[in-house]
């Protein structure tokens, strides 16, 4: 009661009041399912019957070669998608910012368009592009005398091929964020750098990039979380194949839960993925947050 009467509570009340709707949704749709998954991962559950099995689902995952493959594939997806998305979005943003306002809007809208287009439509187009017999990609290769490539049917190319699609359709958001941040950087720093005789590279690496760290951190975390959750394109284009070469943890989780109704095992996979993503996010915050200052 003392706390409710305290000045601190009065100061913070409206803040908490206004985030309450979001908080309620967050608790119902994120926290509760997360806790439910944690419990479910300790059960054998086939949608009708529960059976307590302790950590057996986790032990099964440790011994499951397909899960190992899915875990490795997920990391490979992250390694392809995250750095390339970061680099391309920053480069494109810098190039866009040098254009006139009308051209800037045009390019931003063009790159953002893929964000609002359905991934299903995108996958249909890319399925045609990658078709080994009749696809556009192989047609282009044939013009320069290169033999057709089985983009989605060859384990050597499948992850790179899917990653390319993910990178192209997910560039829009980072570009909008980077262009907004770049446009808002104070001129005084650049003027000071010029007076000190800094060249363009030095200005970029010593002034621009450090000032972009907060935006970069946000983009890095959201891209990495998204990459860990690669699912739709795998589901639509390869079904996890060939021979599990593009199966990700999320896809395996989906199949395990909804096709094979092993909700307990799928929940264990979800918890493992959650721990990994949370771990990565925590490390990133730790590493980057100390240098986030103006």
């Amino acid at each position: 009661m003392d706390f409710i009467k305290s000045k601190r509570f009065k100061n913070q009340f409206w803040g908490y009041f206004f985030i309450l709707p979001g908080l309620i949704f967050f608790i119902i749709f994120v926290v509760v399912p997360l806790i439910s998954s944690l419990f479910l991962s300790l059960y054998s559950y086939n949608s009708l019957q529960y059976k307590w099995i302790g950590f057996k689902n986790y032990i099964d995952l440790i011994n499951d070669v397909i899960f190992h493959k899915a875990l490795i594939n997920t990391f490979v997806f992250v390694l392809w998608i995250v750095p390339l998305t970061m680099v391309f979005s920053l480069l494109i943003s810098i190039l866009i910012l040098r254009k006139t306002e009308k051209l800037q809007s045009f390019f931003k809208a063009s790159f953002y368009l893929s964000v609002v287009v359905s991934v299903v439509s995108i996958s249909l187009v890319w399925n045609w592009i990658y078709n080994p017999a009749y696809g556009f990609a192989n047609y282009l290769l044939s013009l320069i005398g290169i033999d057709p490539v089985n983009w989605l049917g060859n384990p050597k190319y499948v992850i790179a091929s899917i990653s390319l699609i993910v990178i192209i359709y997910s560039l829009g958001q980072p570009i909008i964020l980077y262009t907004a941040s770049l446009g808002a950087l104070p001129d005084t720093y650049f003027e000071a750098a010029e007076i000190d005789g800094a060249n363009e590279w030095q200005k970029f690496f010593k002034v621009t990039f450090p000032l972009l760290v907060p935006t970069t951190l946000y983009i890095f975390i959201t891209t990495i979380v998204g990459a860990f959750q690669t699912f739709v394109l795998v589901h639509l284009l390869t079904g996890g194949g060939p021979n599990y070469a593009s199966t990700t943890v999320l896809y395996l989780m989906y199949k395990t839960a909804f096709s094979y109704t092993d909700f307990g095992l799928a929940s264990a996979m979800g918890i493992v993925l959650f721990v990994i993503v949370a771990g990565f996010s925590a490390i990133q915050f730790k590493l980057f947050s100390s240098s986030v200052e103006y």
Partner: protein
Amino acid sequence: MLKKLIGMVLAVVLITSIFAGCGAQKEGAQKEGSDNVQKEVTLNYWAYWLWSGIKGDEKDGQPEDWHKYVLNKFTESNPKIKVNFEMIPWAGGPEKVNVAIASKTQPDVLIDSENRVKGYAARGATLAVDEFFTKEEIDGYIDKGWDSGKYAVDGKHYFVPFGFADTYLVINKTIFDEAGATNLLPNNELNTWTFDEFKTALKAVSKNGIYGFGLTAKNEQGDSNNFSFLFGFGARTFSPDLSKIVLNSPEGVKGMEFLLSLVEEKLTAPNPETQADLNELFTQKKLAIIGGAPSTEDTINADLKNGKIQGPFELARAMYPNLPGKDPVGFSNNVGVAVFKSGDADREAAAVKLAKYFGSAEIEKTIAAGGFVPFVKSAVKDAIGGSAGLKYAADTYKFMVDPGFGKLGYAEVRAAFYPELQAVFIKTKTPQQALDDFVKIATEKVAKAAEKK
């Protein structure tokens, strides 16, 4: 102060009486509603797309037309039963049913394939329908027809048999005619051929952007067409008592080696595909032969009639290849009407009534447009009519082999097969290794399914 207090009391009384009035009204309405529920039953009926239109060849036919036609007839003669109809997609539909079972929002009635329905039965989600059938009704089914709904584990029947569609090879004969290779197609009573004859025919047409055949190896459908090749060499998925998975037998390995040889010799489309992808390539005249069923022929014929496909496109049919002197084999897609448990006796009784109506001779006569041969004997002749595909399916049904649909965990077994098939095609495993791994994984999955039961 007193006035204020009286005012507050009056306000509370007024508000309370308003709520009480509402409550009384609501209670009255609920009672009436409860009476109605006892008299009237509302069922949820889910179905996959089977064919468009009622007869299947209407120009503007919609996938839901036939279902609505049957449901209207049913509710006309059963006015106390209302039916909510929902069409579910083939892609993602089984997952939707699984989620519905988990969230206790399952349909009352579902038309679906044998393999999935038996999976629902294994989990205890569906009703055994034995007690609702008389001996005469059961005798009214063709041989093996009634038992298509039998679940091997408890011997009970978990769906009302609806129709069957054999998988066989559907051939674009025009491609063979144009290649001067018509004589390479089988021309005996049931159009059977050996593996060598089959391959020779593919070689004759695999040129100029056309592939002789297409393999389904992109998803769980990998079992339906590819198993038939392995079965043709004498392999079987399970031992006769269904106790062991034995597809890695020498016969199974020969079947896999044969499939690999088709890929290596570029006689098949170069990517593992889904059945829908193959149907599309076949429609575009880029595949000479596909694993299909009467519905494959019906779709092509309807598209030709509607002008969606330009002719000439003459169809022919053949069995999957088999060893010389042996019977041909295939893999039949049996479809039935399942009744889900709801815990409400009235609803379950009404649901069984609806399921039996779908399986009645009156309705069975109309299912030919979907490419199904009816299970009810008295409906077969009318249903087949002049359809060459349906007649072929009916004639060859006796050669169909059960891949193990009735076995607990079959859904996991078929899911374990196509990745191994892919491993063989991309040569990361030999046929023997792939089949050994398949048997190992599938056996573990079956054991796990038994543990969960």
